[in-house]
């Protein structure tokens, strides 16, 4: 197999190149995988398989691969629930409890009812907790500092644009489900918010393959 520069072609990058790109990502951009492999081999293998199936489902649209990914994704969801103590996300720390009282007293007496609604009411507290989880879930810094190499951040962001613009409902729906689940569970599980990691890897792969396409490599 020879690779050589050629006139512009719309040829899709081959599976071998895709796998090579994936291998590069896992080796250099995803230190979380190596760390998790030492602690929980099964989770690491399920994650690896989920990533590979997601990427190929995105690139090739195969129904079988999609089904396989959904099964693996459900397994990841199960692990995410098991490894996250989500009850803590909805409890007030002693500092937060004191702050709540102090803030209630900051309001003028005429706004006491408003103060109760905004600072104490259980439903409001629940919304605040969900808000905190949601913004932690979509925080770029969380992923590209702790779980992925910082240098892959531009690739992930650009790749995310292509993924969102692809219109592939299968990917967008599972991504949305992952975000919703993490909004409820929080991101402070034992192994972090790994439910979203396959999509980040997908974004990086898509960006890298786009770059390769731009460089006009194709399989001879």
């Amino acid at each position, binding site marked *: 197999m020879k690779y050589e520069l050629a006139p512009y072609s719309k040829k899709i990058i081959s599976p071998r190149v895709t796998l090579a790109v994936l291998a590069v990502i896992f080796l250099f951009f995803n230190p979380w995988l190596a760390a998790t492999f030492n602690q929980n081999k099964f989770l690491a293998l399920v994650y690896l398989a989920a990533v590979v199936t997601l990427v190929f489902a995105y690139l090739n649209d195969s129904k079988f691969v999609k089904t396989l990914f959904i099964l693996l994704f459900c397994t990841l969801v199960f692990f995410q629930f098991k490894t996250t103590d989500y009850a803590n996300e909805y409890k007030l720390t002693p500092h937060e409890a004191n702050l709540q009282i102090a803030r209630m007293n*900051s309001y003028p007496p005429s706004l006491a009812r408003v103060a109760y609604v905004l600072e104490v009411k259980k439903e409001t507290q629940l919304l605040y907790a969900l808000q905190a989880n949601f*913004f932690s879930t979509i925080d770029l*810094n969380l992923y*590209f500092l702790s779980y992925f190499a*910082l240098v892959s951040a531009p690739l992930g962001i650009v790749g995310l644009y292509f993924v969102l*613009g692809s219109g592939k409902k299968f990917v967008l729906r599972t991504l949305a489900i992952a975000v919703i689940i993490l909004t409820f569970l929080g991101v402070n599980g034992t192994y972090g918010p790994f439910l979203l990691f396959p999509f980040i890897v997908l974004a990086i792969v898509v960006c890298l393959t786009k770059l390769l396409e731009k460089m006009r490599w194709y399989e001879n």
Partner: protein
Amino acid sequence: MRIKLFTFLALGVILLGSFYIYTYKLNDIPKGFYVDEATVAYNAYSILQTGKDEYGKSYPILFRLFGSYTPPGFIYLAVPFIYSLGEEPFTFRLISALSAVVSIFVFYVFIKKLKLYKLSLSYMLATIFYAITPWLVFNARLGYEVTLAFLVFNIGLYFMCVALSKPKNLLWGLPILSLSAYIAHTQRYLFGVFLLFYFLLFRKQILRSQNLRILVYALLITLVVQIPNLLVFSTPAFWAKATVLTDKSLYQISHNVLLQFLTYYSPKSLFYILPDIDLQHQLPELSVMYNWMVVPFLVGVYLLFKNGKKINFKFLTLIFITAVIPAALSGYFISIQRALPLLFPLVVVIGLGMDEIARRLPRIILLGIVILVFSYSLVILYKSYFILFPKEQALAWNYGYRQLAEYITTHADSHFTIDNTRNPRSYIELLYFLRYPPEMYQTEVASVYRQMYYQAPPTVDEYHFGNVEVRRLDWAKDSCARQIIVGDNLSVSESQIKEHNLAEIDRIDDMDGNTIFRLFKTNPAKDCLIQ
């Protein structure tokens, strides 16, 4: 005609409403008067009274202040305001409030020029929400230069945008952009960064042979405008804020810059919680934008990527990216103040998202949503800025110095030593609140600062004016002098009170009754006799 009248009226209501929000209890909120406000205020007062700054330098090109050598624009502009309105905090904060109001008008005109939105209603919506963004409200109520610089830079940006189709506007754009370099440090660096990328990206539109003459004239005018800066260009004072990232390796520098970019653009930072280490910049439970804006922001960013090749989107992308470069390169810590230029393109991008969403909704539902989010935003703003912020951040805004100055005034025959260990710049608060005669302070401050003004001599954190000393406490001599020692809760321990026979004579508390300052009378007869 009817549409123009509606636009005119709507804009008028927005401007008046915003002016009210920006000036409501302006003298009282923020509580306290931050050191950066006090130093600007006192130097403006000094210029009005004597034509010299606090160090005795006549009409400086750069104001030394705390060694930051701040561009002079805001301070000189404050002089006629002090003359007309007096020296209260309101006067200095009013300049920012007016700048913010004018910026709303500039914002509207600018986005109309950019022609990014498909619905005409979206321009008004974006303007309304720009006017009430926490970021703008917060900066509209500051008594120093950042908002004025933001306004002037945006006016320059407008003309640079128009110049893409009518190059004659470079004659306005370049000089006005460069004028902003006389107001704040951020714009001094942003001016150069922006121009570099502007000429790179738009070389086909601008760098044509038929535009050469205009370009040369524009550059000449800009050069003339920058003559004062060129006079001090080679001095250490000019580069005082050019913080060099002192990491040894290029990898570490790149790593830090990339991290800063990620943080500034992160939805969590912009819409939920600000990672700025400076408490003075923070509003309780509110970041620089409202939380619901994350939705139109994400849609807007997507559209920005998608339409990136169109010239108006390209210009927006240019200002969206370059706005953060000076902040990202300035140091290790996030400072949302340095990233203020991002406010304008950020709201434009959010407006893009709002436009896209609004197009897909029936008008009646759109109206309901707009009323809902507008009301919600105002409630959250009121809660965070006008109820919680005055109490929770009072200390960060140096609350307590006015009361201390009043105490010093009523005890003018006593000598005061004030511990400044945790706030080395606190002397300026007292100079300001005491309205200490600048002509007297100029003779008391070390002459080296005046003689080597632009050589940036290092600051010594000890100040003596009138009956006041502001410095670290020296127990070897302070307890033996008849005076009043002032410090915070950490300045004087209980064992030191006993050891040096101090008598606590008064306290200054915050609004919750927590002590800010403790005042002790010394007992030299007893203490020094025992020693």
